[in-house]
């Protein structure tokens, strides 16, 4: 065990030096180092709890996706059957999670079924249907969404939502946000360095679903105020204006409006006449054509501009709007207009997202923690180094050299593996220093024992490393098990702690067992001592 061929020695030195060198850019500025420009300069990321910033956990409501799918299906079925020109239907309902409607002429049920069939096939290659079609009572068709269909729709919606969230955060100009989908219906957003997450939350809180719907001018005001919608209408409340006053509701036609999702641009600005903040939108070609059609067909009628289920304003259509652009006015504050413009530019969220967990850390706390963590580490290391040297002499010095290499290697590996240092991670770091010398303590105590039993120097050292290795291995495995579970179940800061522990365990076994053995072996071969002072 004390024979180290040249290649092995070179390999050990290379590992130790390379990993240690990788730590340097994290410790001091690269500009101060003779660091070749061609080499990457990896740095350890600081977690939110050290760098300051915001962590948000957003949750969607899957039921909302199902609801929207039903509405979409209703619209498609109506259009399809209307275009066919022969099947007439009535009593359409999407209550209870399924879409059902009556075919007026019982002889046409099969024809209707055949027409709808293509709408219900899954888009994927699985061959699974998205919807089941059933005929009830001979004349009623019922479309029930399948589980596969719903799951697929939710997954798609969450993918889109993640993408939209990313676009919106990028538009805010914050640096290096982390946006990850979590589980079935959640998104984690982490933005380092963000002091006040209010603006971010406002931005992510709006779904930005823009709709233009025709106002039903025949609806009775008394019905509307009591929330009773005439057939084919829905009641939409007005948005609360900037001064907090709520201004009633409006009856709008459920169908026949258009969605404002086909935009190429949205800009916040000011209305030229009233000087109120507003948002100008530009439709894409298709959206512009639809908007032109809607306004041409309904000149002199009012239409409602609806954002996230609230009426922003309901202007009269004075003339057809053919240019493909429009202005949305409402009682906006300038900030609200800017935020709406970003939200519209990055697209509507397919589902509402709400914040279920929020953690914000101020930047001063983190800097303070790092400083104190470094102080504690230096003090702890110094005390350990002194004790080891006093207790084990030359062997203690080897252990101390290994300890220093170990500290550098942990930092280096963390930087190379692109891991994140968190506040508990600092504690893990300090703890690792105490634990790392345990391997040397075990070995050195064993060498002492073997010498007392009268073994000769070489044999005692050899036995010391051999017999202690078993316990070192078993003890470290249990720590790895605990750390792996922490990593699997823990949240961000705790994960950071687990990472430091695992890296520290691996590097400490390397430095405390392999490196010191190499050094001790080298010394034994050179000096050939007759006795050991240990």
């Amino acid at each position: 065990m004390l024979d180290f061929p040249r290649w092995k020695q070179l390999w050990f030195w290379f590992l130790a030096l390379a990993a240690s060198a990788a730590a340097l850019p994290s410790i001091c500025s690269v500009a101060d180092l003779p660091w070749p420009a061609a080499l990457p300069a990896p740095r350890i990321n600081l977690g939110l709890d050290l760098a300051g910033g915001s962590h948000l956990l957003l949750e969607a409501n899957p039921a909302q996706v199902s609801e929207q799918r039903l509405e979409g299906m209703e619209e498609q079925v109506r259009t399809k059957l209307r275009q066919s020109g022969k099947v007439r239907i009535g009593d359409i309902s999407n209550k209870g999670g399924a879409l059902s409607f009556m075919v007026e002429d019982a002889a046409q049920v099969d024809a209707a079924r055949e027409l709808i069939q293509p709408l219900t096939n899954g888009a994927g290659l699985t061959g699974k249907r998205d919807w089941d079609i059933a005929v009830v009572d001979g004349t009623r068709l019922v479309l029930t969404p399948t589980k596969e269909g719903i799951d697929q729709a939710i997954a798609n919606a969450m993918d889109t939502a993640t993408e939209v969230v990313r676009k919106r955060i990028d538009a805010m100009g914050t640096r290096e946000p982390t946006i990850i989908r979590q589980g079935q219906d959640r998104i984690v957003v982490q933005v380092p360095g963000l002091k006040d997450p209010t603006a971010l939350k406002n931005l992510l809180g709006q779904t930005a679903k823009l709709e233009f719907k025709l106002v039903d001018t025949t609806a009775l005001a008394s019905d509307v105020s009591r929330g009773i919608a005439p057939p084919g209408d829905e009641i939409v409340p007005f948005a609360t204006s900037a001064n907090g006053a709520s201004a009633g509701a409006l009856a709008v036609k459920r169908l026949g409006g258009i969605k404002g999702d086909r935009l190429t641009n949205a800009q916040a600005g000011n209305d030229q006449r009233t000087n109120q903040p507003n948002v100008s939108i530009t439709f894409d070609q298709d959206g512009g054509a639809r908007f032109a059609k809607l306004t041409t067909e309904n000149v002199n009628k009012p239409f409602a501009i609806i954002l996230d289920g609230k009426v922003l304003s309901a202007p009269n259509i004075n003339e057809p709007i053919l240019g493909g652009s429009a202005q949305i006015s409402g009682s906006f504050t300038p900030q609200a207009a800017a935020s709406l413009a970003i939200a519209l530019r990055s697209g509507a969220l397919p589902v509402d997202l709400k914040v279920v967990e929020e953690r914000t850390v101020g930047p001063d706390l983190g800097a303070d923690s790092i400083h104190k963590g470094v102080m504690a580490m230096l003090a702890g290391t110094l005390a350990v180094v002194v004790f080891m040297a006093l207790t084990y002499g030359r062997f203690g010095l080897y252990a101390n050299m290994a300890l220093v290499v170990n500290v550098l290697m942990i930092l280096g590996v963390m930087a190379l593996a692109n891991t994140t240092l968190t506040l508990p991670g600092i504690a893990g770091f300090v703890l690792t220093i105490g634990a790392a010398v345990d391997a040397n303590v075990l070995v050195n105590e064993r060498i002492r024992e073997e010498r007392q039993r009268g073994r000769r120097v070489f044999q005692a050292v050899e036995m010391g490393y051999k017999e202690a290795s078993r316990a070192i291995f078993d003890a470290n495995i249990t720590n790895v098990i605990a750390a792996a579970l922490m990593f699997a179940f823990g949240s961000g800061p705790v994960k950071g702690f687990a990472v430091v522990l695992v890296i520290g365990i691996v590097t400490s076994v390397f430095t405390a067992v392999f490196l010191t053995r190499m050094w001790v072996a080298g010394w034994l071969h050179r000096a050939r001592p007759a006795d050991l002072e240990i």
Partner: protein
Amino acid sequence: MRLLKLVPENTNIHFLKWRLPFFIISGLLVVASWVLVLTQGLNLGVDFVGGQMIRITFTQSKEAPVAALRGEVERLGYGEPVIQTFGAPNAVSIRMRLPSGSEHNTGLADAMAKRITAAVKAAHADARLDGVDSVSGKVSKELGWTAFQALGLAAIAISAYIWFRFEWQFGIGAMVSLVHDVSLTMGMFAITQMEFDLNIVAAVLTIIGYSLNDTIVVYDRIRENLKKFRRMPVPELLDLSVNETLSRTVMTSLMMLITLTALLLLGPKVIFGFTAAITLGIFVGTYSSVYMAAPLLIWLKVTATSFVPTESALDRQERLAREGGKR
């Protein structure tokens, strides 16, 4: 220069003579810890009960004006705050329940945080906002459940590993000393009413890992000695093993405690509770490896034959053939 010896050579302390009284004391401490946890309760953080926690440091003050703060926050009408100092005497955490309706309208929780910080800043010029945590009831329940799972799985996985590497008696011994260490740590949190949050769960997991370090080293030596001294009575053999590893146990525990003390005194105040938990756990873990893990082996009837492989089929044939030949 003479080298330092923390433990004199060739100690021969009869640790196991006192195994019964110590075992009873440990048992009582475990029971007391759980009684405390159940009656006094843990001071659970927002991670586990949901709500909002606002952390504020008063940079120019020696001590945080806790009483004044309570009045200022209560006046806002969000209910009674839980205010306690946090690591340092001039830093506090203010914990609030989330306002009703915030499940649907997350703006309400925001507004509360804003109003509280504004009120505190208006009354104290040196108040520095260090962070806001808001956790909804649903998420906090999930966090609690995952923490519980992680702890349970860690205890089982590690005991199973020791069973696999040693023998079943050792696995049980490890499990019992684990439960002992974790229980006493929980007891400390019940007594001191330090906040118990997700970080503390990580600390407990660390204790589970590290407190077994000592146990494994002692067990490893017991296994070695069981093979070496077949005829030695087990209590005597355990004493020998503990004595042989004593200087290592003392040295390693001392190194760990030195670094942890440095962290407690000089380290970031935010993780004071975390460090305190690990420190206590390491201390208790060292004790339990001598007085819980080792004596249990006597009661579980470990003998020198525990590590002798049971006779293989081939050996049996040979033995029978030999015996047959004699006859």
